[in-house]
């Protein structure tokens, strides 16, 4: 459709000014947007209050549709169990038999471990410090950044930096907190760096998101690429945010100087997610103190 002719003012001085005013307004609108952008680049947390209000307001919609989605996917999953049931049953029975043997061997090892550990005085802290559980209700699926929203009963004890895990492994960490929702920076976001170790031999590495669902695993000592397909990575506990031994990812391909990995936990199939306490609160406090000191000393400093 052609534009209406009210953009062609002719000799009317008033119409000319009107058009001029709309141009001025639009350009200043763009400038306002640019300034807001500049503010949020310098201080990424600056507008978190606004985003949280938006998230809280729309959380009931997300919860409602999420419950529908869950019901539907449960139904289709149940139906898929009937497909080729006999063959599946056979394969499963075989697997169980094999696992039973393995389980027996494991039990013996565990018993042995329990007796040996006190001898070498290793502090073993297997208990995870759980704060609360919640459901993931939405993600930033149209943006290059990877956020998810978790719905919890109360965000009383929740604070930024706390790790979020599912049954399968690490999901991410909390960044912003509302009344009944909290925003999670997912493992796959390019801004999320997690210190990990290889499960088999404790090789230290860093995991960084690639924003496309995979992770880049870079070993601490560069030069050689020690990763192989199928290697499993768990959190190392370094840095103090994530407790050690939470499954993070599995290597799917070997790259030149790093490994490409797939996260163990998939937010789409996660039923409940658990928010944990920060592993070593003093570490986080130190980081915050450093940040504040840096901000004080240099006002224009950008701290990523």
């Amino acid at each position, binding site marked *: 459709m052609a534009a209406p002719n009210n953009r062609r003012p002719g000799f009317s001085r008033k119409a000319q000014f009107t058009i001029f005013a709309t141009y001025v307004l639009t350009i200043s*609108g*763009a400038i306002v947007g640019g300034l807001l952008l500049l503010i949020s680049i310098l201080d990424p947390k600056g507008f978190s209050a606004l985003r949280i209000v938006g998230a809280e307001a729309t959380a009931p919609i997300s919860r409602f549709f999420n419950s529908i989605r869950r019901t539907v996917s449960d139904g289709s999953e149940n139906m898929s169990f009937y497909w080729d049931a006999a063959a599946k049953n056979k394969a499963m029975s075989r697997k169980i038999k094999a696992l039973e043997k393995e389980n027996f061997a494991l039990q013996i090892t565990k018993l042995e471990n329990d007796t040996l550990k006190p001898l070498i005085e290793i502090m073993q802290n297997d208990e995870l410090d759980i704060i609360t559980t919640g459901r993931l209700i939405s*993600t930033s699926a149209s943006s290059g950044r990877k956020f998810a929203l978790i719905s919890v009963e109360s965000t009383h004890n929740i604070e930024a930096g706390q790790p979020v895990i599912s049954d399968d492994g690490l999901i991410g960490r909390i960044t912003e907190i509302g009344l009944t929702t909290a925003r999670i920076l997912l493992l796959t976001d390019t801004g999320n760096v997690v210190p990990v170790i290889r499960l088999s031999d404790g090789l230290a590495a860093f995991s960084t998101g690639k924003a496309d669902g995979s992770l880049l695993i870079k070993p601490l000592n560069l030069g050689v690429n020690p990763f192989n397909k199928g290697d499993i990575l768990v959190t190392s506990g370094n840095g103090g945010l994530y407790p050690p031994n939470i499954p993070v990812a599995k290597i799917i391909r070997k790259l030149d100087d790093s490994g490409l990995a797939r996260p163990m936990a998939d937010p789409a199939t996660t039923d409940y997610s658990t928010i944990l306490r920060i592993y070593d609160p003093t570490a986080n406090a130190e980081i915050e103190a450093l940040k504040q000191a840096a901000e004080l000393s240099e006002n224009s400093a950008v701290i990523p």
Partner: protein
Amino acid sequence: MSSEERFIRRKRRKSFPLFGGRSYQTRLNRHHSQWRILAGPIVSVLLGSLITTLPFFSDLPILPPFGFMIFIAWRLLRPGMWPMWVGLPFGLFDDIFSGALMGSAALTWSITMLVAEFIDSRIIWRDHMFDWLIASMFITIYLIASLHIISMVQTPPNIWIIIPQLLFSIALYPLVVRFCAAIDKWRLDR
């Protein structure tokens, strides 16, 4: 109130300088519902921005930017319907829900309105295919710009991650136009 009086009143209201009002007077005895005329397009764009609150879980940013698509669909379908500055309020609303940096959509949507104005002055009679081409150009530049804005604060994601989203968006655009046209029909019903 006589009909002349009403006519003068409406004319005064329409002459508020920031809205490009109609320069002619309807001669029919039936009138459009004002709230329908205003609310239809506005609500559709806001709902488009709210799509991300639905539980879509995907590894890639695969969900098309529906808010932006509905926004440009209206802009191309009905040039002159909105004042040029609407990019700012719509963009700010989108920023709250998209997960991108605050201000990024406010900036890009404002610039989109300016560019659309320029296109209107150059290419006056366009058909649907041409609008689709223009919209594809807008969406491509918008997605790339959004990715660049993200990479200002953190490690830039690979540029290829937006390709599926881009193809989806371009392919879905005619559907979005149909959706807007249906609202338009309802909006101008009397």
